[in-house]
C-alpha cells in the first residue's frame, strides 16, 4: 500500500447537498494510575524497554491477574460523568487475536457486559449551540505493547524484516468510550466530532483520572464515518479512521472522509468497510486493512478474574464527589471573568484555564491573570514549544507580578521584564525587581522634571494639546517614558502632562 492514493474528492458543500454523514467515535483513554490494570508494574513513562514487566503482563503460564481498584473506580467515575448507567454486575472478557503487541495472545477487555452504558455528553459548538452526543458504552481494558518495525522504510510494517517489542505499555489501564451513531449534525459533523473529543478531554482532566494528553497518546480517537442520501434511514457502509490524535485532526479526518465517500458514491462505486490511516501532513486518509471477514475475536469471559459488582452505595458516593462539569465551569468562569465565548475558547485551547483560575485564587485581578498567561507567557511557551503549564513559573508568582502592577510599582513593560526574569530562573518576582532594578519612577519630583523637559523640547506638540488636541499627548508620554527608560507609570505621566498644559483628559 502506498501512502498516496489517487482519489478525487467532492467539494464539501456538494457532498452535504446530497448526503447526511453518520459518525461513530471511539476514544481510548489511558488512565493515570500508578500501576497497570492487572499487575503491580509501574506505568511511569520513559522507562527503559521491558523494565516494567512481570509474569502477568508478559502472559507467562500460571501468572494470575488481579484488578486495580483505582482502575475500576476511574471507570465508574467516567461512566457517571457521561450520564451512564453503571452495571450492577459485569465481567472481563478475553479478546483473542494473534499479534505480538499482546504477549498473552489476547487483550483483557469487556465484551457484552461493559461497566457503564447508555449515557450522553452535551458538547458546545463554536456558535454556542449545544449538541447532545449519545454514549453507547464505556468499558475497561488494557493497552498493548509498543512495536518497532525494523528493516523497512521509515519504521513501517511493510517491508520490515522483523519487529521488536517493548511491553512496558502492555497492561496499562484503558477506558474505551464508544458513542452511539451521531446523526443529524449535517455539515457540522466534523465540528461536532472535534467538540466532542475536546469536551471529553476536559471531562477526563476534571475527573483527575488521566492527563489525557493526546500528543502523548494518552487519549486516542477512531473516527467511524458513513454517508447516506438525504431521506434514507439505513446507514451506509462505514470507514474506520484509526488513531487520530489531535483535535484538529479529528475534524479534518471527518471532513476528508465525507468528501471521499461522496466521490466514491457519486461515481457509482461502493464504500468498502476498512480501517484507514490519517496523515497529518495533508489531512488525507489512506486504506489500511480491509475487513473481508467479520471481526472474529472469539470473546469469552475471562476465567482468571472474578466479576465486578460496584456496590450502589459506593457508586452514589462517587456520584456525589463528581467535579463541576467543564462546560458549566467554563460558563461560570466566563461570567465571572467577563470574557467572550471566543476568548474562553482560546484560553481552553492554550491550556490556560486552570492556570488563570489559580492565579486569581492567589489574589490577581481576573483581567491581569488572563492578560499575562495569554500574552507574555503564552508567547514564551510558543517560542520554546512547551506547554503553558510546564513553564518555570507558578500562578502565585504571576499573581505577585499582578499585585506589583496594581500597586503602581510596575508598569506593563516592566512587568514583562520581571516575568522574563522569573522564566530565566533569576528568582521570585521581587528578587528579579531587586536584581534588575525594575521599579516605576513614582517620585513625583523626578517625574515632574521629566515631564517639564519633554514639554520644553516639543513646543509645537504642547501647543496642540493646549488647543484641546488631547490625542497629541501620546507623543509626549512616549518622550517621558523614553527618558525614564520605561520605568514610569504611563497613565500617571499622561495625567501630569494634561494637568500642566491645562487640558482635560
Amino acid at each position, binding site marked *: *500500500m502506498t501512502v498516496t492514493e489517487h482519489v478525487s474528492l467532492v467539494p464539501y458543500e456538494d457532498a452535504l447537498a446530497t448526503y447526511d454523514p453518520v459518525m461513530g467515535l471511539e476514544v481510548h483513554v489511558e488512565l493515570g*494510575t*500508578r*500501576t497497570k490494570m492487572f*499487575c*503491580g*508494574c*509501574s506505568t511511569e513513562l520513559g522507562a*527503559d*524497554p*521491558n*523494565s*516494567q*514487566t*512481570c*509474569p502477568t503482563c*508478559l502472559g507467562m503460564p500460571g501468572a494470575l491477574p*488481579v*484488578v*486495580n*481498584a*483505582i*482502575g*475500576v473506580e476511574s471507570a465508574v467515575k467516567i461512566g457517571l460523568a457521561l450520564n451512564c448507567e453503571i452495571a450492577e*454486575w459485569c*465481567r472481563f472478557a478475553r479478546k483473542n*487475536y*494473534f*499479534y*505480538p503487541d499482546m*504477549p498473552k495472545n489476547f487483550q483483557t477487555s469487556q465484551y457484552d457486559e461493559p461497566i457503564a452504558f447508555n449515557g450522553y455528553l452535551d458538547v458546545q459548538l463554536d456558535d454556542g449551540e449545544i449538541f447532545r452526543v449519545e454514549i453507547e458504552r464505556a468499558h475497561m481494558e488494557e493497552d498493548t505493547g509498543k*512495536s*518497532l*518495525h*525494523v528493516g523497512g522504510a521509515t519504521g513501517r*510494517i*511493510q517491508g*520490515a*524484516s*522483523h*519487529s*521488536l*517489542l*517493548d*511491553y512496558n505499555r502492555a497492561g496499562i489501564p484503558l477506558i474505551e468510550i464508544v458513542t452511539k451513531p451521531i446523526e443529524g449534525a449535517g455539515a457540522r459533523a466534523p465540528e461536532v466530532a472535534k467538540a466532542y473529543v475536546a469536551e471529553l478531554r476536559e471531562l477526563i482532566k476534571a475527573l483527575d483520572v488521566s492527563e489525557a494528553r493526546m500528543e502523548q497518546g494518552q487519549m486516542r480517537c477512531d473516527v467511524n464515518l458513513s454517508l447516506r442520501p438525504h431521506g434514507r434511514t439505513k446507514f451506509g457502509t462505514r470507514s474506520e479512521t484509526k488513531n487520530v490524535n489531535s483535535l484538529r485532526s479529528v475534524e479534518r479526518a471527518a471532513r476528508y472522509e465525507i468528501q471521499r465517500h461522496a466521490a466514491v458514491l457519486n461515481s457509482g462505486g461502493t464504500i468498502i468497510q476498512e480501517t484507514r490511516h490519517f496523515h497529518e501532513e495533508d489531512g488525507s486518509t489512506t486504506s*489500511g*486493512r480491509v475487513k473481508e*471477514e467479520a471481526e*472474529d475475536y472469539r470473546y*469469552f*469471559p*475471562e*476465567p482468571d*478474574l*472474578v*466479576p*465486578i*459488582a*460496584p456496590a450502589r452505595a459506593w457508586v452514589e458516593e462517587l456520584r456525589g464527589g463528581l467535579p463541576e462539569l467543564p462546560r458549566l465551569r467554563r460558563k461560570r468562569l466566563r461570567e465571572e471573568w467577563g470574557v467572550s465565548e471566543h476568548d474562553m475558547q482560546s484560553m481552553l485551547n492554550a491550556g490556560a484555564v486552570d492556570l488563570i483560575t489559580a492565579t486569581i485564587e492567589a489574589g490577581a485581578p481576573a483581567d491581569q491573570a488572563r492578560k499575562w498567561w495569554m500574552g507574555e507567557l503564552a508567547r514564551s511557551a510558543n517560542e520554546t514549544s512547551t506547554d503553558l503549564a510546564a513553564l518555570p513559573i507558578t500562578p502565585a508568582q504571576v499573581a505577585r507580578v499582578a499585585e506589583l502592577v496594581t500597586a503602581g510599582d510596575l508598569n506593563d513593560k516592566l512587568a514583562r521584564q520581571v516575568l522574563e526574569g522569573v522564566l530565566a530562573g533569576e528568582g521570585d518576582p521581587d528578587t528579579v525587581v531587586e536584581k534588575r532594578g525594575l521599579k516605576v519612577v513614582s517620585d513625583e519630583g523626578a517625574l515632574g522634571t521629566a515631564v517639564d523637559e519633554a514639554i520644553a523640547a516639543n513646543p509645537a506638540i504642547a501647543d496642540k494639546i493646549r488647543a484641546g488636541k488631547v490625542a497629541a499627548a501620546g507623543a509626549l508620554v512616549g518622550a517621558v517614558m523614553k527618558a525614564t527608560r520605561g520605568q514610569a507609570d504611563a497613565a500617571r505621566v499622561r495625567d501630569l502632562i494634561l494637568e500642566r498644559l491645562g487640558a482635560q483628559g
Partner: protein
Amino acid sequence: MPGITREEVAHLARLARLELKSEELDHFAGQLDDIIGAVARVAEVADQDVPPTSHPLPLTNVMRADEVRPSLTPEQALSGAPAQEQQRFKVPQILGED
C-alpha cells in the same frame, strides 16, 4: 452435537496465521471434535437449574490497591525470549496487517 468441520479449522488457522496442509485440516478437525465432545458431556450432566458460569467461586470485586510492586529486570523478562535486540523481544516479520 455438530462436528468441527475442516472449514472451521481452516478459518481458525487463517486467524492464527498458520499454514495447514489439506490432510492436517482433517486431522485437526477430528481431534478438536473429540476434545469438544468430551467437554460437552458436562452440559449433559448439568441440570436446568444450573446456570452457566465462568468462575467456580461465588466471589466479586477482588481487587488490589494501586501500589507499585517490583517488576522483573529486563534481563529476567527477556531470558526466555528466543531472540532479542535493543533490549526488546525480537519477533519474525508480522504478516497480514496493512
